């Protein structure tokens, strides 16, 4: 069986599963899975760029995804004029001061000769800068957060069209990745993994606690969307007529229409990113990346700048994750920092890449769809299984209640089993690297 046929069969199979979901459960569920599958596929491409192409062990995917989500708020929400007047400039000034302190410290560290004088200068700059920064920054934050805390209490965004937030999410994630890469990429694989894990937690902590930025755990809801609202569609006589002509009731038709709109947008983004990733893989650059991955020492001996290439691919991969994160927040219509969990947003993406086939973009896409489908469907299947298994027990048995209640946790278990089975019996994944 040629590679082409095998891949088509695999994709066809996943597509078929989604269609079956449409018939068995509802088309809304199927489209929801499709949309999140498209987003997951993009995230998987991002991780595949880093791990599959370059062998970088980044377990901070969650952080970049969350930054993409933050970008949606920063770009698309209307600015809160009152908050800006109360303390906006002060907050910005404080941030600039903080950044200036770090830059000054970095400059001193590189420009001054090592010795006691440098250590002293560094200490003075860092400690003095920190207190100065807090003195400017804190009152500004208090002022901003006290502006109508129940409704806003944050600076708001730029009020631009939400689609702009997607590339902006990529840029924000890329910027963060550049900063992180500069400091952490020199570390060995295990250390890099822990470092990225920590950075992701820090990004989430910042988003949860800095209320002036995006309301923290109070969440920003009702984000603008690139597709029409269901209620508007239902009030549009033309739409209702078309729906009636197709034999669907207008409410269902409107929800399907909105979801399909997202699907088309996401599919476009996925195709563009996939095409770019494929081109990159085939180009001399891609061959160089794989050469570095397979043997760093040899590549360095051939004159390749390993550190810079690593930084480059780390930034690119993170940017892709950021774009996917922005798309996801747009789809949700809200930014909820409390829901970002490493198991779901970092390790699950890793399962997608490994199962799909690391080093192969198509594999990553397939893994994204397949694993997302499993992640969603394991819960009802687990519940069904538990009901079958426990059907022999009495209705009011505590064990039965516990088992049925716990069925929801089957999905983590299943993901682990899938990952281990693939690693054991097909370590290159479903669509291996060529």
């Amino acid at each position, binding site marked *: 069986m040629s590679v082409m046929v095998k891949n088509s069969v695999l994709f066809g199979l996943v597509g078929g599963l989604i269609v079956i979901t449409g018939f068995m459960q509802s088309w809304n569920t199927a489209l929801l899975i499709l949309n999140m599958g498209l987003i997951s596929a993009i995230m998987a491409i991002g991780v595949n760029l880093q791990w599959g192409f370059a*062998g970088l*062990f980044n377990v901070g995917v969650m952080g970049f995804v969350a930054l993409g989500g933050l970008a949606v708020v920063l770009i698309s929400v209307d600015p809160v004029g009152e908050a800006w007047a109360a303390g906006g400039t002060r907050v910005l000034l404080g941030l600039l001061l903080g950044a200036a302190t770090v830059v000054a410290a970095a400059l001193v560290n590189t420009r001054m000769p090592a010795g006691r004088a440098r250590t002293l200068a560094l200490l003075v700059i860092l400690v003095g800068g*920190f207190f100065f920064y807090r003195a400017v920054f804190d009152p500004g934050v208090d002022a901003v957060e006290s502006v109508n805390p129940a409704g806003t209490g944050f600076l708001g965004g730029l009020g631009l069209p939400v689609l702009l937030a997607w590339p902006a999410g990529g840029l924000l994630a890329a910027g963060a990745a550049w900063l992180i890469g500069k*400091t*952490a990429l020199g*570390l*060995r*694989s*295990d*250390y890099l*993994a*822990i*470092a990225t*894990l*920590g*950075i992701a*937690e*820090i990004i989430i*902590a910042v988003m*949860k*606690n800095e209320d002036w930025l995006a309301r923290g755990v109070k969440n920003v809801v009702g984000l603008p969307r690139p597709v029409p609202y269901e209620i508007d569609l239902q009030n549009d006589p033309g739409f209702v007529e078309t729906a009636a002509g197709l034999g669907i009731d207008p409410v269902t038709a409107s929800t399907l229409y909105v979801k399909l709109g997202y699907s088309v947008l996401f599919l476009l983004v996925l195709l563009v990113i996939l095409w770019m990733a494929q081109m990159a893989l085939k180009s001399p650059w891609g061959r160089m990346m794989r050469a570095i991955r397979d043997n760093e020492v040899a590549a360095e001996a051939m004159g390749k700048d390993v550190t810079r290439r690593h930084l480059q691919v780390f930034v690119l991969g993170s940017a892709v994750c950021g774009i996917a994160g922005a798309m996801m927040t747009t789809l949700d219509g809200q930014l909820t920092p409390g829901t970002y*969990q*490493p*198991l779901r947003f970092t*390790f699950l993406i*890793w*399962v997608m890449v*490994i199962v799909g086939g690391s080093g192969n973009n198509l594999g990553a896409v397939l893994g994204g769809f397949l694993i997302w489908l499993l992640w969603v469907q394991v819960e009802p299947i687990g519940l069904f299984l538990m009901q079958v298994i426990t059907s022999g027990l009495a209705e009011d048995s505590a064990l039965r209640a516990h088992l049925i*209640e*716990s069925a929801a*946790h*089957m*999905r*983590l*278990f*299943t*993901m*682990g*089993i899938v*990952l*281990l089975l693939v*690693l*054991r019996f097909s*370590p290159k994944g479903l669509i291996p690297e060529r």
Partner: protein
Amino acid sequence: MDFLNAIVALSNFVLIPAIAYGSQLALGALGVTLIYGILRFSNFAHGDTMAFGTMATILVTWLFQSMGISFGPLPTALLALPFGILGCMALVLITDRAVYRFYRQQKAKPVILVIVSMGVMFILNGIVRFIIGPDEQRFADGERFIISARTFKEMTGLREGLAIKASQGLTVIVAVIAVVLLFWFLNRTRTGKSMRAYSDNEDLALLSGINPERVVIYTWLIVAALATIAGTLYGLDKSFKPFVYFQLLLPIFAAAIVGGLGSPVGAIAGGFVIAFSEVTITYAWKKVLGYLMPESLEPSGLVQLLSTDYKFAVSFVILLIVLLFRPTGLFRGKSV
């Protein structure tokens, strides 16, 4: 008097909690470091191994409590601990046999083993949530305080109280016993010596007739014991919640790396470094400074450098600083 008050306040809010937390981290980091030294990979499933061991202990504790068995003033969990350890040992031996051994025989790259441990992490996470649920469980019983703030105030007449929770005292005592036993085992017994030899130089150890599988099994057994003890102590001190244990992975790894991966002494030192910096940087120093400084200079704010939600940031920054200036950690760890 103010000086004494300052010291008491400092001990109450910073020193004692940090010592207890540091001991828990140190025990966790010892497990990570042993796996790294002997099996040569970073075990991402360690937090969940701790959660599993603690869960086993909690279940036995509940059984004892329902049978009316108690341990006097000490928490019943201490009686249940050996059973929890046994449960955890069975679990790690099964995972090793079913999962890790295959890759060891293949001589897989360490990073593959790390990904494998990610799979194990998912499974353990699922099992723990499946059995005990994702919610918070409190299982501490017995005396709550060794000395309560009020008794201390009455005893000394100071304005500040010093409270030592029973769980904190217990943590330190159990941790000291565990560490002494561990070092005795590693340094004095034949098996312990063979473990260290295997960790230092695998080829030489194999040449001198050390059975690698035996070394690996002993390592897993010790790691299971350490993880269960660390997890149970943490749960007694705070509370048990599967997700929190998963998150403990970060400070534990930070401790192990700061100390130098593969070095047991380093793991202990790293645990305390991380714990003390986390607690001191997120503590509001207003009270202590208020006692120490003349009244005119008394700080108006809380003098809290970072809010407690940023404690991850602290472990992470320490990690970065140590790695930048001493890439193998404080105690010269190894690198695979």
